[in-house]
């Protein structure tokens, strides 16, 4: 018995021996359960990691009372959130109010479905790909789904009947729309280099021609910044902005519904980190070797590549927290100008540069291996120096005072001087 969907799933990798329906179903269910458990457990542990890392950065110890070294703290937090009172503010849109936390949580999990996390695992019933759904359009699917996360936040802000929540929701919608474009544009060079939109193919191509962080450094940088913005993490946490908006979109939420937003934030972080790993850090590839990418596959290869993927993922998760406890929040105009005036043109120009470089290297007959990676690296070093040492002079993010010309400054000063009230004028 076979499925039409199964053939579609296998279209990405025609070398796969056909897996029959029942083993496929059972293995899929097992993978589903494992990935879901991984998401929930890591969301719980990440709350602890965040508190620990914030504490260490601030020369504190962090939670260390519950369990050994505070390891049971997520359990205590979860228990607390379960027994707290559920509050429903008056005049809320009850249905949307309830559905919003779920909506913010789901896209993270759905996106996680297409991310390959290890080399195929051979079993006696056929090869099991370590990915939930190896969609032929995996990459486009991610672009389509990743933006759905904004609905949860906007609807939460809208349905709360609270001006702060609404402002948080509005900000998040503006922010996500702005950064999604730069995010999509920054991934086009990845697709160009891989020549395929399947995530499995992108991982394989990186194993052969060098990781994309080497060949596409600027795209990685743009994607990372956009990913930070999409997950609403500092310095892009304007939807929450506890200093000005109470707690932003989840001001009115309590107990488990609030907790769900919290879990959603960390699940989104996991997904974004997994995406960065897959698109730019070679996914589950073990660096400098090819033996893990080619047949014959074995269980130990799967385990090792799984470990490699997990290490890369953890690095990005740590980076998220590291950045959070280093940087202050952007001002709204800084956020907008960074997204529209810097990242978007930069990513567009980068597509042109990469396309030109690929044409040139192909014309020169450079094979797609380490020679290709080295030439791309040389190009990227030049670009990175140009961008971060020459362009980054108060232009990437405008400093505390907005950029202002000498003539404009003079005009403002005379205006301010003229309109300054003297005591006599106030007396009138």
């Amino acid at each position: 018995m076979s499925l039409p969907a199964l053939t579609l799933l296998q279209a990405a990798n025609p070398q796969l021996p056909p897996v029959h329906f029942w083993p496929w179903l059972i293995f899929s269910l097992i993978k589903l359960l494992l990935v879901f458990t991984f998401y929930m457990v890591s969301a719980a542990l990440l709350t602890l990691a965040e508190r620990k890392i914030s504490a260490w950065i601030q020369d504190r110890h962090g939670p260390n009372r519950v369990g050994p070294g505070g390891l049971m703290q997520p359990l205590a937090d979860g228990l607390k959130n379960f027994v707290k009172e559920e509050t429903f503010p008056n005049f809320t849109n009850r249905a949307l109010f309830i559905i919003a936390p779920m909506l913010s949580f789901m896209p993270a999990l759905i996106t996680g479905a297409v991310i390959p996390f290890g080399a195929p695992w051979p079993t006696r019933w056929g090869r099991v790909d370590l990915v939930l759904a190896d969609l032929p359009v995996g990459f486009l699917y991610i672009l389509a789904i990743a933006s759905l996360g904004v609905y949860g936040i906007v609807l939460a802000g809208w349905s709360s009947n609270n001006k702060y929540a609404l402002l948080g929701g509005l900000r998040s919608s503006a922010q996500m729309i702005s950064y999604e474009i730069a995010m999509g544009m920054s991934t086009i060079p990845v697709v160009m280099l891989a020549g395929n939109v399947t995530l499995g193919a992108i991982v394989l191509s990186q194993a052969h021609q060098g990781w994309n962080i080497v060949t596409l450094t600027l795209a990685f940088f743009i994607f990372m910044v956009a990913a930070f913005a999409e997950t609403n993490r500092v310095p892009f946490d304007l939807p929450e902005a506890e200093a000005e908006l109470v707690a932003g979109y989840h001001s009115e939420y309590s107990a488990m519904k609030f907790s769900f937003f919290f879990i959603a934030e960390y699940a989104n972080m996991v997904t974004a980190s997994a995406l960065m790993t897959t698109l730019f850090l070679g996914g589950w590839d073990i660096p400098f070797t090819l033996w893990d990418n080619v047949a014959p596959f074995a269980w130990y290869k799967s385990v090792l590549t799984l470990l490699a993927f997990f290490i890369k993922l953890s690095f990005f998760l740590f980076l998220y927290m590291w950045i959070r406890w280093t940087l202050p929040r952007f001002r709204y105009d800084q956020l907008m100008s960074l997204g529209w005036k810097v990242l978007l043109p930069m990513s567009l120009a980068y597509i042109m540069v990469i396309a030109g470089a690929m044409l040139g290297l192909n014309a020169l007959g450079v094979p797609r291996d380490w020679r290709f990676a080295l030439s791309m690296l040389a190009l990227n070093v030049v670009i990175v120096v140009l961008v971060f040492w020459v362009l980054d002079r108060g232009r990437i993010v405008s400093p505390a005072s907005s950029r202002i010309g000498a003539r404009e400054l003079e005009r403002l000063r005379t205006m301010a001087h003229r309109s300054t009230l003297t005591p006599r004028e106030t007396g009138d």
Partner: protein
Amino acid sequence: MAIGVKVLERPIEQTSYVRATLKGMALTLKHLLNTHKVTVQYPEQKWPLSPRWRGTHRMLTTEDGKAKCVACGLCPTVCPANCIKLVPGEDEQGNRYPLIFEIDEFRCIFCGYCQEVCPEEAIHVGRHYENSEYSREGFVYDLERLMAQTHPVCEMWDPSDPKGQ
């Protein structure tokens, strides 16, 4: 245009975001790896108290277990917070003693005047700060409770020179 807005000139050409961010991250990483943490693990570790610390009161007793207080009435008189309640009594030999001696620790401002004014060195403020009760009434310490306190008394009072001579 708002009135009198101060427009600062900043060296735009020298500012950066990415490089400054990297510098900041290096700093936070240094703190992250720094094993010297400033937290005091409170119930196990305690910060040393100042020698001038004035905490909850204590009534000293004579060798035969009676309060040293002679109910002279100086402490309720001097108390600026009016938190000491004293009802004096007199026994057959004509010795005065307190029938009721209560200190409302909630009203007390811990100025230490009672300790300073006491001619018999009976009432003292102590080097103690961990107080908790289930009711507000629990913070009205009566004579028995004041006598039962065992914590050290304020070091401004020197036990070897009790009358400050």
